[in-house]
């Protein structure tokens, strides 16, 4: 690693109508380093990345590449300068082959006949993949790959364009532990061949494992840059949140009450099989396992999104059927979906209409909507969940990710719930909001609500759960009280080798 800066941004300010998304931000990337960029949601990381990749142009400030002042006017400019970005959700062509994805825009073409040299391209693609330790066939369709594999393809694409600076935007957010481990190794390989990397993540483990230095943004401002080894976890959190967080998992003393829900031998062909468990009032049941173990599918069936094939559900000791969402809602089951934007909100709609959508019968009279009731309900709930918005007529798309999430929570509050299902409630959420979510969860449990929390994050499973269910391949492989649980036991149950 040399001390020369390959990329330097000075006093970058970017204004959008009404807001400063970046306020005088500085950033220096050394050649060959892995530089973590951290900050809460809405701190300005995404905008900052978009300035580097040329999606946005800064209003003020200067950008230097290898000491030379440059301007990046559009994404093609940044590509030409050797800057590539890899996003959490790969922005690929799902119906084309891996090779086509890697060489999109710079295909190998025979100079004489102008034909695409497929053989050469497949070979080169295979070689790139091999360098990255991946062994899948480059002829495969992109959509048949896992998220982790798709990311590898994106990285291979960056290599094939000879990118010198690679930006990774929350690459580990939807990866399992082993997949993350593979990604670390790949990232280190990239570093070895001289690539400089900007790595954005909410996970401290990512940063400690990979990064040489870390830069923190908060409220659109530059807070500081430190060597990873010089800064304590606590100070870093303080830099990101602006205050100290004493306890990430605020578990309160509480009584676990009587059984509210019991599931016996619930099955849905191809997704989960013979699931049995009981859920008590005031209890947080953590459901964990690898991505694809059938956890989300199970929750979707409990909420009536996809019907189960067989099995019995008892609710308050009565046998019930949950065939559609309305059945679940009538029982008092609420669901916070994993993908807030896609599953939780209508982004083009105002906040009032978003909030009332799951409670239309409460704001209507024989099917006629009462706008006054609707507005009052929306205003009350939006204030309750502390949404940062001026008016209930703001569009959901105008809010930041964290505030959008609050609107989804406000939707849950429209009905009288007994059981709350939270699917990866902290996914893509910054550390400050995380502790707020956990606090609310603890409060709710203490008030007697039963909570099912799906999570892949080991610390929060162990920190928040009262009981833990581990799923693998659609079956429950272990059930344990939190006192007897530890990371090894859970991992073993989650990954048990198949016979």
């Amino acid at each position, binding site marked *: 690693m040399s001390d020369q800066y390959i990329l330097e941004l000075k006093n970058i300010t970017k204004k959008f109508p009404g807001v400063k998304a970046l306020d005088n931000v500085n950033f220096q990337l050394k050649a060959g380093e892995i530089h973590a960029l951290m900050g809460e949601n809405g701190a300005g990381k995404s905008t900052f990345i978009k300035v580097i990749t040329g999606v946005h142009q800064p209003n003020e400030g200067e950008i230097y590449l290898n000491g030379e002042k440059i301007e990046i006017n559009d994404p093609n400019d940044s590509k030409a300068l050797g800057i590539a970005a890899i996003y959490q959700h790969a922005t690929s062509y799902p119906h084309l082959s891996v090779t086509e994805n890697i060489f999109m825009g710079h295909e190998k073409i025979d100079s004489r006949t102008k034909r695409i040299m497929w053989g050469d391209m497949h070979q080169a693609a295979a070689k790139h993949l091999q360098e990255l330790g991946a062994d899948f066939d480059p002829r495969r369709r992109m959509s048949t790959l896992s998220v982790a594999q798709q990311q590898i393809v994106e990285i291979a694409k960056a290599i094939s364009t000879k990118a010198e600076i690679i930006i990774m935007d929350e690459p580990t957010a939807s990866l399992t532990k082993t997949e993350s481990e593979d990604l670390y190794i790949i990232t280190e390989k990239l570093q070895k061949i001289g690539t400089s990397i900007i790595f954005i993540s909410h996970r401290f483990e990512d940063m400690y494992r990979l990064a040489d230095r870390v830069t923190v943004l908060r409220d659109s401002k530059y807070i500081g840059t430190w060597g990873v080894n010089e800064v304590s976890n606590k100070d870093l959190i303080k830099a990101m949140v602006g205050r100290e967080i004493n306890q990430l998992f605020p578990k309160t003393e509480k009584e676990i009450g009587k059984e509210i829900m019991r599931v016996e031998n619930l099955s849905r062909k191809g997704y989960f099989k013979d699931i049995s468990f009981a859920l008590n009032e005031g209890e947080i049941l953590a459901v964990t396992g690898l991505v694809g173990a059938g956890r989300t599918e199970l929750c979707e069936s409990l*909420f009536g999104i996809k019907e189960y094939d067989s099995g019995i559900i008892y609710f308050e000791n009565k046998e019930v059927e949950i065939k559609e969402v309305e059945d679940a809602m009538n029982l008092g089951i609420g669901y916070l979906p994993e993908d807030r934007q896609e599953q939780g909100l209508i982004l083009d709609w105002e906040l009032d209409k978003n909030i009332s959508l799951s409670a239309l019968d409460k704001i209507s009279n024989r099917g006629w*909507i009462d706008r006054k009731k609707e507005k009052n309900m929306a205003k009350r709930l*939006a204030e309750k969940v502390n949404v940062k918005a001026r008016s209930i007529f703001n569009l959901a798309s105008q809010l930041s990710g964290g505030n959008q999430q609050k609107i989804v929570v406000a939707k849950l509050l429209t009905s009288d719930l007994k059981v709350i299902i939270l699917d990866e409630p902290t996914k893509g959420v910054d550390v400050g909001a995380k502790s707020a979510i956990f606090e609310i969860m603890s409060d709710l449990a203490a008030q007697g609500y039963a909570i099912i929390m799906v999570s892949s994050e080991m610390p929060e499973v162990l920190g928040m759960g009262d009981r833990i269910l581990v799923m693998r391949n659609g079956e429950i492989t272990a059930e344990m009280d939190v006192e007897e649980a530890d990371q090894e036991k859970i991992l073993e149950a989650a990954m048990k080798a198949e016979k």
Partner: protein
Amino acid sequence: MENKLEKGLTFNRKIKAEKEFNLKDFFLQWEWLLLLIFIAIHIMNSQLSPYYLNTYTLLDATMTFLDKAFIALSMTFVIIFGDIDISVGSTVALSSVIMAVLYNAGLSMPLAIIVCLLVGITAGFINGILIVKFKELSAVIVTLSTMILYRGIAYIILEDQAAGGFPMWFNFLGWGYIKNLIPVILIAFSVAAVIFYLLLHKTTFGRKIYAIGNNDIASLFSGVKVDKIKLIVFTLNGFMAALAALFLTSKMGSTRPNIASGYELDVIAMVVLGGVSTSGGKGRMIGVLLSIFIIGYLRYGLGLVNVPSQVILIIIGALLIISVLVSNLLYGNKSE
């Protein structure tokens, strides 16, 4: 009413619940532009023909185009879903032909009319079921297939003949007047338009239609019965096609298997010009109503001065392209 869940939460945030009136937003609505076009067409028409601008002509003219306008009302719902139904022309033909054949076979006219409506409902229901049950098939593909299918059945039933001879009172639907002034079809359409307006803009049913058109997954997670509502709307579209068949058959006096061919495109043009986006979730009934009368009076006026129908088609096509372009440029990001 606060519920138990809410009580634990207390923040002191104040969020506005009063809408601020914004003059610019108010006048930037698509409907104002449609209103201008509407007025411009009447000015043009009255310049073209001295007989145009009087109450009788204006009222009579509605008889020439309001039959298909019934379908535009329900098609608005379909297009707000982001779907489309191109089988409506064939549904008109099928229900009309079956009605005529049954009447000629001895069924009483009121019963034949009921059967006609039932045929429309069934045709729409079949579209709906196929679209809801086979998610991998798009509405275009499903209704393209049934468009061919329904028309094919109409041809098998009647071959290439005409059937008619309806009782005198049946003509009243297409040609009758109330108080010797207002066409029956205009009254019927006005009633239907009010009902559809209220359904779309004032009821939870309409709200759910917009919700599905914007994001069907989020709608499902919010407890909206997406499949049921889609099924209802497609069935309704079939019913409205049968209703249009009644008025059209009455107007024509007889029917043929090729009746109402190309109807689907006229109907879709009315809806799209009305500001309903084919990508779903946007559009208002007022716009569709204005656009129905714009296209109708434009055709009527140009027809009065013997502009060939091919030229009229070119003009309507151009109007449609321009309006879609303008609405994309001006209102690309506006909801509803």
